[in-house]
Structures are given as structure tokens and as C-alpha cells.
């Protein structure tokens, strides 16, 4: 009980808990007011005593005291109201954010059915009406590309929504990089046939196992590799290299492309951010945002170095699975 009183008297701690400055803190103001009231009482008593009849002085002091207490009470109450209303505002804002995230998730999910209908409708159209497929090839291709992009964007939006809602599921296991990287390389090489640069996916064969989620890691590689190919200059190679450190394995994906300006570097991991230097219709601006979060969910780190007109290297680390288990990693 006495501990509680002492705790209540610790003004500084109370004010820090409310998260406001000392002069905005009700308890501190109350203390100051108390000092002001008492001093006023004493002063008015002393002054009054010299010049006025004792009884009148007592009455005056009483009125002054009551008056001051009322004022103090009003001011303290005002403070409390302000603090309460701020708290309510912040809770409401959080609730709105949560609803917005849920809405985005549901909306994106709902978009998939019609997008699939278009996809299948197009392929049925091509099959059942081949003459149309030939005469209207250009237009059909435009529709198909638009729809593919839509599906791709919806998939990314759903993933971002899951990341922000904290519902993304990562299963950490000891995985071998070779398989994951080989699959990712194949996928990227397939999809970038005919583009400017190529990938060199050769890495050491004796890499230690790392903690990670193979599906998500494949996604990370695919994203970084396709970026490297997309932004690489004509005739150049994007390359993957690895470094084995004490507790981590670091991967470097380097391109010899246009590089990133200082300004761009600040925004690169943000949602929907696209470099203005690239004119391509693909890409959602969400890839790096997703990649960064996936890596961090796997207890890794991601960073990059870049020089304008020379190229960019994205690097990320994953924890080694062959060293004594570190607290909080995997199972």
C-alpha cells in the first residue's frame, strides 16, 4: 500500500508513462498549482494581516483559497480530457487501419475470380475460334497481357496484405541453397527470354545449410534476379555470388545496369515505388517491399550498394543452420 503511494508520488515516472512533456503532464501541473495556491494563501494572509482586521482577512483568504482550488480543478480536468481524447483518437485510427487491411485482402481475393474467368475465356476463345485468334491476335495479346499483369498485381497485393496483417506463414527449416537457387534461376531465365541481359547462376556447391523457408526464399531469389535482369544493360550479365561468414551466408546479386540515384535509394524498399528511369509495363513496385519483409521474417538482413550508370548489387544474409542454434531461430 505504501509502495503504491510512493509510486504515485514519483511524478517524473508518471509523466513518462503518459508520454507527454513535463509541462503537459497533469500530475506535475497539479503540484505546481498546489505550490501556487499555498503561496497565495500565505501571502494574502500575511499582507492582509498587516492592513486589515483579522476576521476579514480570514474570510478573504478563504474565498481566495476556494477560488484558486476551483481554477486548479478546472485546469486539471481540461488536461485529463485532452489526454483521454488523444488516446481514443489513436485507438480509432488503429481500428480503421485494421479494417482497411481486411478490406484490401478481401477485395484482392475477390478480384481473382473474374481475372481467372478472363484468362480461361481467352484461351477458350483462341481454341474455339482460331480464325479470330489470327485476325485479332494483337488485340487478344493485349487483353492477355493486361490480364496477366492484373493477376500478378493481385497476387502481390495479397502478399503485402498478409505481411502487414501479420498472417503470412513462414516455416523455418534447414534448407539447401542449391535447389532453391537452381529453381529460381530456371524460372527467371524462362520468363526473361529475349531480354537485354542474362544471368550467371553459378555458385559454390559446398554451401552450408541455412535457416529459411524454401518457397519464400525462392520468391526472394526470383524477385532479385528478375530485377537484376530487367535493370541490367544490354549485353551484360547479372550474377549471383555467395560469401560464407561465421554465423551467416551472404548472397550478392549484382547487375551492371543503370544504378540508383541517392534520391531513389531512400525509397527503394517502399511499397509501390518504381524507379523513373525504367520504362517497362511489368513490375508492381511491391517486389522489393515483399522481398525485404520475407528476408526479415527468416531472420535475415537485406542491403544494397549502387552506383549510377555502373550497377547495383543487392545483398542479403541468412542464418547458417550448421552452427550451434541461436536463440529464437527455427526449430
Amino acid at each position: 500500500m505504501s509502495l503504491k503511494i510512493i509510486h504515485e508520488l514519483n511524478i517524473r515516472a508518471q509523466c513518462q508513462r503518459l508520454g507527454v512533456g513535463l509541462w503537459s503532464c497533469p500530475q506535475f501541473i497539479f503540484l505546481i498549482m498546489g505550490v501556487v495556491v499555498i503561496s497565495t494563501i500565505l501571502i494574502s494572509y500575511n499582507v492582509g494581516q498587516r492592513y486589515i482586521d483579522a476576521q476579514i482577512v480570514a474570510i478573504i483568504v478563504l474565498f481566495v483559497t476556494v477560488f484558486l482550488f476551483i481554477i486548479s480543478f478546472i485546469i486539471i480536468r481540461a488536461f485529463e480530457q485532452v489526454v483521454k481524447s488523444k488516446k481514443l483518437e489513436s485507438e480509432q485510427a488503429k481500428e480503421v487501419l485494421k479494417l482497411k487491411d481486411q478490406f484490401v485482402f478481401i477485395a484482392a481475393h475477390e478480384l481473382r475470380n473474374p481475372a481467372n474467368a478472363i484468362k480461361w475465356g481467352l484461351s477458350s476463345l483462341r481454341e474455339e475460334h482460331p480464325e479470330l485468334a489470327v485476325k485479332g491476335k494483337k488485340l487478344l495479346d493485349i487483353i492477355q497481357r493486361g490480364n496477366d499483369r492484373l493477376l500478378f498485381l493481385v497476387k502481390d497485393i495479397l502478399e503485402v496484405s498478409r505481411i502487414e496483417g501479420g498472417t503470412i506463414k513462414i516455416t523455418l527449416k534447414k534448407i539447401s541453397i542449391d535447389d532453391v537457387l537452381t529453381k529460381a534461376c530456371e524460372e527467371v531465365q524462362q520468363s526473361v527470354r529475349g531480354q537485354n541481359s542474362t544471368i550467371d547462376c553459378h555458385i559454390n556447391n559446398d554451401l552450408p545449410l541455412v535457416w529459411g523457408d524454401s518457397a519464400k526464399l525462392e520468391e526472394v531469389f526470383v524477385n532479385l534476379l528478375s530485377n537484376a535482369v530487367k535493370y541490367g544493360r544490354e549485353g551484360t550479365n547479372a550474377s549471383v555470388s555467395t560469401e560464407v561468414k561465421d554465423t551467416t551466408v551472404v548472397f550478392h546479386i549484382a547487375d551492371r545496369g543503370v544504378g540508383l540515384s541517392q534520391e531513389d535509394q531512400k525509397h527503394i524498399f517502399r511499397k509501390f515505388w518504381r524507379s523513373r528511369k525504367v520504362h517497362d509495363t511489368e513490375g508492381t513496385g511491391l517486389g522489393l517491399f515483399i522481398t525485404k519483409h520475407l528476408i526479415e521474417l527468416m531472420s535475415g538482413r537485406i542491403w544494397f550498394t549502387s552506383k549510377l550508370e555502373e550497377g547495383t548489387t543487392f545483398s542479403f544474409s541468412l542464418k547458417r543452420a550448421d552452427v550451434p542454434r541461436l536463440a529464437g531461430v527455427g526449430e
Partner: protein
Amino acid sequence: MNATKKILIVEDNEDLLHMLSNTLRGEGFLVVETKDGLQGFKIAQEEHPDLILLDLDIPGIDGLTFLKKLRGDKKNKDTPVIIFSNSADIENISEAMEQDVFCYLVKSDWELNEVIGKVKEALK
């Protein structure tokens, strides 16, 4: 000559349902359609289809519950089922695979003719 195979499609999106049925009928299959899970289960009990194409996000009872009920039904214990979904949610996939399905297809990853190919495979 094999007797005409009967396929039950449970899918709540009108357009996808229409395209699937049309194409399958074009291939010579007998097709029964429904948009609702409970209705689908009733049909499965009454008509013993040779194959069921099941969308997981359906009204009535959801796809996974439908599947579990189906496997509990004597006559449909072994009916081959192909699962459809909009998402590649790992949890859903593994839960579905536990119930013995022929395969799990994420709609946006498969072309219509590839789906038909899988149907024929499942019916062999």
C-alpha cells in the same frame, strides 16, 4: 467403349462454372453443376459422379468440410476429387491433400485445356 463418365463441378463463380462445363461437355463428359456446397454433397450422394471438381471457396459448406464429409460417405469414399482454389495457401493445400485428392490446382496457374488434361488423367 467406356460408359460416359459423369463429372460433378462445384464452383460458385458463374463464368468459370460455365466454361468448365462447356469444355467438358464438348469432350463428351456428362456434367452436373452446382454453385453450392450443401447442394453438391447431396448430388454426390444421389448421383455418384465419377469425378468431382471442387472449388474450395464456396457457399453452403466450404470446400474442405465438403471434402471431409465426402470421404466419410461410403459411396464416395474413393471418388477422385480435383481441388480448385484461388490461392496457393500452403495450409489449405496440405489440409486438402490429407483428405486424398487427385490434385490441387491454383486457378490462375492453369489454362483450361491443362485442367481438362488433369480431369482425363484422374479418370483413367
